[in-house]
């Protein structure tokens, strides 16, 4: 197998920026390179140049490209202890201050995180007080999230996470079985809207009490992480909460001091300064 060089990637990134106005320049190079290599192999291109060629002449291919270049791996109740803390501490805290709750899932992928949250809220009996917006850059994955299905091969993992989280029931309560998949009970999505949104473009569209942006910024370099944190900060009410992945960190961002750490193990932060 040949190795992709940075120069090949630069050319690709430039074309995508110019023609489609998506900017991958500040994505983390190691994973971005692996994704491109994967696309080249999957579509049997001879080289990155052939991929550039295809994107130049075939705009319909672009959505597929975005879908393949992003990493959509997700789980329900990933890091069960995180969800336990949301349920037992964070959400009661928000609701004790004002009796409603607005949530943004930034980089929601196929929706597992959103389904988990709605189950959590339902079991707490506060789902009707909540309003949720779930966004992702990848249109195909947003459509999957709207369909609200979970593949059979993931159900065991999801169920064991739910168990560790100590949910009230068993996870099958919220699903009906289909052929290769399980269908999530869509009634639980009545307070959720899914939209396409690109964190790189940095548009603020609303304000929230709680933002989950977990395992999304790990695909960005530090420059972009820093920029995105401004966006997330601006999208939070004062004293709102930001949750990032358990192995991510804010400490090297310019505006880290506008947050305090609420839980260091699960990476939950609170905005304390405008």
């Amino acid at each position, binding site marked *: 197998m040949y*190795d992709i060089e*940075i120069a090949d990637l630069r050319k690709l990134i430039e074309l995508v920026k110019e023609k489609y106005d998506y900017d991958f320049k500040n994505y*983390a*190079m*190691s*994973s971005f390179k*692996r*994704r491109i290599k994967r696309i080249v192999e999957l579509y049997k291109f001879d080289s990155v140049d052939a991929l550039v060629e295809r994107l130049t002449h075939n705009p319909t291919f672009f959505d597929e490209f975005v879908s393949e270049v992003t*990493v959509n*791996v*997700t789980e329900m109740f990933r*890091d069960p202890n995180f969800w336990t803390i949301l349920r037992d501490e964070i959400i009661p805290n928000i609701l004790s201050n004002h009796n409603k709750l607005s949530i943004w899932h930034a980089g929601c992928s196929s929706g597992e995180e959103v389904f988990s949250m709605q189950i959590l809220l339902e079991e707490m009996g506060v789902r009707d007080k909540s309003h949720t917006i779930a966004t992702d850059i990848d249109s195909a994955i947003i459509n999957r999230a709207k369909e609200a299905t979970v593949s059979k091969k993931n159900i065991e993992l999801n169920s*064991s996470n739910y168990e*560790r989280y100590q949910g009230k029931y068993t996870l099958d309560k919220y699903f009906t079985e289909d052929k290769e998949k399980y269908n999530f009970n869509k009634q639980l999505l009545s307070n959720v809207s899914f939209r396409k949104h690109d964190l790189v473009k940095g548009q603020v569209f609303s304000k929230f009490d709680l933002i989950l942006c977990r*395992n999304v*910024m*790990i*695909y960005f*370099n*530090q420059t972009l*992480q820093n920029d995105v944190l401004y966006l997330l900060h601006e999208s939070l009410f004062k004293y709102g909460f930001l949750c990032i*992945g*358990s*192995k*991510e*960190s804010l400490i*090297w961002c310019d505006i880290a001091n506008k947050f305090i750490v609420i839980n260091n193990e699960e990476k939950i932060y609170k905005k304390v300064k405008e």
Partner: protein
Amino acid sequence: MFSYRNINVKYKAVVIGGSAGSFQPVTKILSSIPKDFPLPIFLCLHRLKHVRNGFVEALSIKSTKEVQEPFDKESIKRGSVYLAPANYHMSIELGNSISLSTEGMVNNSRPSIDITLDSAAYAYRDKLVGILLSGANKDGALGMKKIKDRGGLTIVQSPEESTINTMPTSALEATEIDMTLTTEEIVKYLIELDKLLKIKHENI
């Protein structure tokens, strides 16, 4: 076979991969290297997906150095030991930092040794020492080839000594491995490398 020719001041990092049967050789290595061994060491060991805690502590207890699980984009420090966290791939970025990722499993593994080795080979080129230990699958073989192709040094634990030798054997099939060593010889290699690096340092 052990060769003094492979001890070279050019090396800037050490990366170690292992799976089933590698805990013992890894702890032997970590407990024997000098506390001030100057190069960063990256460990990618197959581990239970859902057990986030405990492993890094178990390794640290036996090590002369503290072992840490890096955060995403953490910068690489001289002489630190980094362990790939459970359920994340660990890559080395150009520009001296570590990236984590939740990409799909590679060789049924996350963390995947191939991913860590390949990215390290790309970042460090010929200035990398790669060590592959006991294990029951072929993860790491391709990564060792990448290290070799980029001019780095490749070492595998001898298949005779390995508890499960699929991993070193696959690497031996995938590329020309520079040295096939017992754990004791790997330790000796790192100690000799340490001495040479310190002499170089004193002379600057």
